[in-house]
């Protein structure tokens, strides 16, 4: 199996004296579904954002599809980014625009500047967008303004926008942290099924350990910027969870959450 993403000794410091990410290394195989868990402030978002260089790593290497992208700039960086989809906790759409316009933004990285300015999207790309919107159940909303959608619907637009990039890797930073349990399940199912269908590797930052255990083929545990666990969900024992979160199980609300969702 090929390895589209290799993270080597990734280190990030936002200022002197503190390391947000401290010498983290891991690999992601094609089609793998990796969940990153860890307490608030552990560095999960920073790891994700270093991978597509929204944040500049201080040290270490990011190998994506065989290329070292830790220092590339300009066109090369954009070429790498367009193959890496990203999904955000707060969706980050252009809310004045329609669902369809937002979704088509996923194609900008493949277009000339002029075509982008004039919105000259290819018809085949638009057809693809319609198919995807249909798949996530938003076809009838295609001309609605993004601001008029519910949170779960906005996140589905975010998913389609990312998939329009034809990514080989999908980064999801707490995609369900602002959603109710029902929408959360819809979103996680969609991310899971669509990445599986197209054999896209996926890294998801999650706050809910039970969700990570349910979907992930592999779980990475981060504590204070350090990688403290990397293995299949079956190996993530309660002792390990306590170690990652540095507290005992009864303080973690995990059991309560499991009961609440079923």
């Amino acid at each position, binding site marked *: 199996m090929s390895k589209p993403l290799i993270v080597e000794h990734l280190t990030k410091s936002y200022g002197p004296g503190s390391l947000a990410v401290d010498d983290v290394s891991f690999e992601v195989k094609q089609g793998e579904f990796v969940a990153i868990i860890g307490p608030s402030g552990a560095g999960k978002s920073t790891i994700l954002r270093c991978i597509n260089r*929204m944040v500049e790593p201080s040290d270490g290497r990011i190998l994506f599809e065989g290329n070292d992208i830790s220092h590339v700039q300009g066109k090369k960086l*954009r*070429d790498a*980014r367009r193959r890496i989809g990203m999904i955000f906790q707060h969706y*980050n759409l252009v809310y004045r625009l329609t669902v369809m*316009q937002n979704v088509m933004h996923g194609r*900008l990285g493949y277009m000339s500047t002029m075509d982008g300015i004039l919105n000259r999207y290819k018809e085949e790309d638009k057809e693809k967008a319609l198919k995807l919107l249909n798949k996530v159940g938003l076809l009838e909303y295609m001309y609605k303004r993004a601001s008029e959608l519910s949170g779960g619907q906005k996140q589905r637009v975010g998913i389609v926008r*990312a998939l329009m*990039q034809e990514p080989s890797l999908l980064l999801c930073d707490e995609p369900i942290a602002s959603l109710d349990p029902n929408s959360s399940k819809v979103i996680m199912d969609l991310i899971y099924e669509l990445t599986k269908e197209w054999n896209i590797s996926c890294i998801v930052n999650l706050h809910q350990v039970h969700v990570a255990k349910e979907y992930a083929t592999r779980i990475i545990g981060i504590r204070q910027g350090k990688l403290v666990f990397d293995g299949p969900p079956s190996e993530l024992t309660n002792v390990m969870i306590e170690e990652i979160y540095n507290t005992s199980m009864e303080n973690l609300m995990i059991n309560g959450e499991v009961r609440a969702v079923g």
Partner: protein
Amino acid sequence: MKDYFMSDVLVEQGGFLQGKEMKSRKIRINNPDNDRPINIFIGTAVILSIISIFMLNIDWIMLFSRVGELAGVFIELSQFNFTNFDLVAVAFMESVTVTLLATLYSLVGGLLMGAFMARNITPSKKLAGVLSSYNSFIRAVPTPIWVLLIIACLGFGPAPGIIGLSFHATAFFARAFSQAFEEVPQATIEALQATGANRIQIFFSAVLPASMTALIAWSAMRFEINFSESTILGMVGGGGIGYSIAASVTGYNFGRAGISILMVFVFAYCLEIMFTAIKRRMKA
């Protein structure tokens, strides 16, 4: 219940509360430090206005005794004189075209400069700073002065009016638009960066549409200002309806001045109605 709560607070934070709030038995909910700049501002404004009233040395008694004459002026103005109305109409159209062109040129210039000035999307923070101070300078000098300076180079007529107005309006738009661009959430811009879109694409696909409501509101407002300024410019030699009004009044042709003023008023009023309607539709 209340007593219980108060005593609770007292036990926990006694020192903090006793010093200030407990004396008056009232708990203040604002933070005086936040209000201080506002209080200073209001205080200074009041003092300055009082000083100005004395400085100006206005003869209030004469002012009030002459108010009656103002009505006389209005009556004279309302006796419209339609001889040579074609000249007034041409002058009015000249003012409208000056306004339109100046607004159009300054919109283009303002959008361009605003994009480079907005801190969140500028390719260079240094350039943003330079442009920003350049525009502050332009805006600090009133439009009529720019027009007079340009008249000094180009001579009288509508061209200096257009250039002078555009000068000022471009600086105004650059400032207003850059602020509108800066209000586009960083997260939205990042989302497009993450797709691999380049700077220019992000500007046209996300920043511009996201700030469109603000841009249109500013443009409408400035169009109104440009029109009223273009009439004033006529009086300093920029041609147009302003010149017609000034010339009529100095020549005691109040009838013609009246009709010119009425045209300005009707046009400005129509603009106002139109822009209000547009804004209402944009919000819907």
